[in-house]
């Protein structure tokens, strides 16, 4: 079955601490994975996608096919990183995404 799992509903850290938001997937094909973010009172938007191998706002995510994971990491969290983060999996040949249940990141000063 196709599934995206985000085990943490809430992750709380202090400013300057490292952050890792976990994402695991289940998919029989070759996965295309994304992280979307929703800041308070803003619309959901793409943060990064694994095929781009980019770092956005200091965040990176590496696809680990062996562990079927796509964890989002940042070495030093900032208060402005506080938001809701969703991991998403693209379903081949459909243009559809499957979203995880989301993790709320709280960064305290």
């Amino acid at each position: 079955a196709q599934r995206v799992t985000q085990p943490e509903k809430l992750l709380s850290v202090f400013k300057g601490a490292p952050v890792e938001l976990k994402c695991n997937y289940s998919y029989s094909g070759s996965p295309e994975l994304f992280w979307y973010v929703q800041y308070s009172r803003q619309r959901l938007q793409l943060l990064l996608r694994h095929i781009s191998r980019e770092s956005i706002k200091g965040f990176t995510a590496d696809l680990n096919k062996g562990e079927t994971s796509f964890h989002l990491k940042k070495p030093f969290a900032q208060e402005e990183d506080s938001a809701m983060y969703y991991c998403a999996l693209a379903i081949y040949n459909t243009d559809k995404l499957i979203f995880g249940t989301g993790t709320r990141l709280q960064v305290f000063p």
Partner: protein
Amino acid sequence: DVKVTQSSRYLVKRTGEKVFLECVQDMDHENMFWYRQDPGLGLRLIYFSYDVKMKEKGDIPEGYSVSREKKERFSLILESASTNQTSMYLCASTPQGTSTDTQYFGPGTRLTVL
């Protein structure tokens, strides 16, 4: 810059009412989506449209229908609203054949059914 707009930011309706949620995009995208967003459940796909007058059920279509008469507009219809349809509804669009491209989201409509 892609713009996806939704007709209402907040909506309050009574049980049994027929409810229309409208979504418009200005980038000539073929694909449009309706999701509902609930705490602890994430985003769940209600319906998907890949062209005018074409639609496909998502994961939770029960109690909903959709209409796509024009390419830029995708409507979600609650034929008889119920309290368990109280939720945040998000519309999104994307070009066709671009599963690795971003989905562009609207601001959302928070629907409360009393």
